[in-house]
């Protein structure tokens, strides 16, 4: 009714107040907003937060997989807090996260930016080859073989090709974190995401910059990067969270060795679970959760949305 009443072309005289009053309360966009949100809210509540709350409650008990159970308050927390290995696991995790972000985060961005430079046909092929996916299991097998200390491909390169001393690779407490991250430098490319963001930049921006005499790096710095900034911020958030929770990869590659130099918090949590210590594992996870929260919040404050962007 409202539509008919107020649609253009309607003689102005017909716009009577009475006709409008009826739609006064319909806030269609508000209803629609909830229609958009509710399915996701429900799923996130029931399969995201609900299990987490259950797990959290378990951390306040002496829960075991079966058998008697009773409330123990913060006993698990104090036990985990006193465990000397927890501290070293946190240290390893933070170093791993920092190193992996420093070494691997920028590469896909730069590659994506450079790939966009290629001629369309070349780009299509290079894109396939650069971001060619490999299933996780296969890559574990391959890299374990490459890193083998005695006969591995990399040792062969180090000793026979480069003439270096015998290298420890994953077996060296000093190098292990780097070599764990190394495949990520070559293999993992969320580059598609950046390419998706990059191509929304109008050509004219670059032309304008060119007229102003901007060089290659200036264009990347002043146009490409700022324009995909939200995606970068998002990916970085995810990279931080993800690398602080890293588990599968070091578990399969080193199982925490040597000397716990690559044992991350989640790996130690897994050790605790395997020792049938539910509540301790959950308590440790809560500590990690707090750390991740703190880092993420700090990061979001530091990289607050630029009002000019």
């Amino acid at each position, binding site marked *: 009714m*409202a539509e008919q009443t*107020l649609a253009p*072309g309607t003689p102005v005289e017909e*716009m009577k*107040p009475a006709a409008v009053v009826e739609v*006064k309360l319909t806030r269609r966009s508000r209803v629609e907003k909830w229609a958009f949100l509710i399915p996701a809210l429900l799923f996130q509540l029931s399969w995201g937060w609900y299990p987490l709350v259950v797990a959290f409650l378990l951390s306040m008990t002496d829960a075991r997989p079966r058998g008697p159970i009773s409330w123990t308050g913060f006993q698990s927390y104090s036990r985990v807090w006193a465990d000397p290995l927890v501290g070293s696991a946190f240290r390893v995790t933070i170093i791993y996260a920092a190193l992996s972000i420093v070494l691997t985060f920028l590469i896909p961005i730069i590659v994506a930016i450079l790939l966009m430079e290629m001629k369309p046909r070349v780009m299509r092929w290079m894109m396939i080859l650069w971001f060619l996916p490999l299933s996780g299991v296969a890559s574990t097998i391959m890299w374990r073989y490459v890193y083998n200390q005695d006969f591995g491909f990399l040792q062969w390169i180090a000793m026979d090709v480069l003439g270096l001393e015998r290298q420890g690779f994953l077996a060296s407490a000093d190098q292990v974190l780097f070599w764990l991250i190394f495949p990520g430098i070559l293999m993992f490319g969320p580059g598609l995401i950046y390419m998706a963001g990059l191509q929304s930049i109008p050509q004219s921006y670059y032309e304008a910059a060119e007229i102003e005499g901007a060089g290659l790096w200036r264009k990347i710095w002043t146009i490409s990067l700022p324009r995909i900034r939200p995606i970068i911020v998002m990916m970085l958030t995810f990279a931080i969270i993800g690398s602080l929770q890293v588990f599968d990869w070091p578990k399969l590659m080193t199982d925490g060795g040597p000397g716990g130099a690559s044992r991350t918090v989640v790996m130690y949590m897994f050790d605790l679970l395997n020792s049938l210590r539910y509540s301790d594992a959950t308590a440790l996870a809560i500590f990690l959760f707090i750390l991740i929260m703190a880092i993420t919040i700090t990061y979001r404050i530091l990289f607050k*949305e630029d009002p000019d962007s």
Partner: protein
Amino acid sequence: MVRVELKHITRKYQATSESSEEDAKRPALDDVSMTIEDGSIVSIVGPSGCGKSTLLKTIAGLEYADSGQILYNNVDVTRIEPGQRGVGMVFQDYALYPTMKGKGNLHYYFEVHQRTEAEMEQRTREIAQIMGVGFEVLIGQKTDTLSGGEQQRVAIGRCIVRDPYVFLMDEPISNLDAKLRERTRIEIKKMLRKFKVTTVYVTHDQQEAIFMGDRIAVMRKGKVEQYGTFDDLYFTPANLFVATFIGTPPMSVIPAVVANGRLMIDQAGWTLPDEIAAALNGQSHLRFGMRAEGWEVDAPDGIPMEVRYIDRIPTEQAAFAHGTLGGISVTVIIPIDHPEVTTMRVTPRWDQTYFFDATTETALRTPGVPDLF
């Protein structure tokens, strides 16, 4: 077509990540009331963050007022959705739908309002005629291949095609380069005259506001400081803010003291005419405002002003002398053949003086709109 009335519109600020702490505390719109007459063009001008865009969006229905009423021809549309208010809006960044061609942009309105294909085509053709040469070609193209000016035309076409009650423009030409801006401004003005659509035009540029608007609303911090014609604003500013905001070069405002019937700036001063002294309500500390053209130079009772430099403008057959008076920058219009000096004596023409309260900044005395005819 429609008279738009705003009655005591208040809108609390919705803090976004972009708003500063200070902005977050005050309302975005603070008891705004104004009436936009049928077919008139109103410019809303003010510094950034003053709430002018929010006001425009509230008129469009994109933002809802927390309290107050918006009436279109006495019909309360406060809670009506934007799509049903029959408004057309042009955005600063044109906001064309990037995945559609120009035509698609024009047609979207008809599509969602379930109009017939024929009507849609008919209106598009009509608009193309009004919009002039090449518009048909423009709307056949992808919008992101168009230049800024072309996009602007499509965006305006998109608004006009629906025959809107109210035309809302949010800094529509600020993204164009200077020359194009000048031309487009004229084009828009011509077009608005032709359609006689009620228009609200938001800009941060007072020149543009003056050019476009039949009436001008000056906003600051969510409040309409003054709403009136250019002459109203120029000659009878409601307060210091409006006075300094309107006019080029900006009004010089000098702190002054009234003592013993004399207007004192630092140590020097002039004798105050009686009728002005009476208007000042016996206030002693006040702000004394003068526009560049209000000064008389080299008069006998003038007080010395240090001249920093003189800017001669041959086309205007005049020159601006930029100097300092009472520690404040002052601009004075002088004859173009005035010799280079380091100091000159200046005297206000008393009928062109402005006085403002030092604390409330409200106007105590203004020249008033001159009766030219």
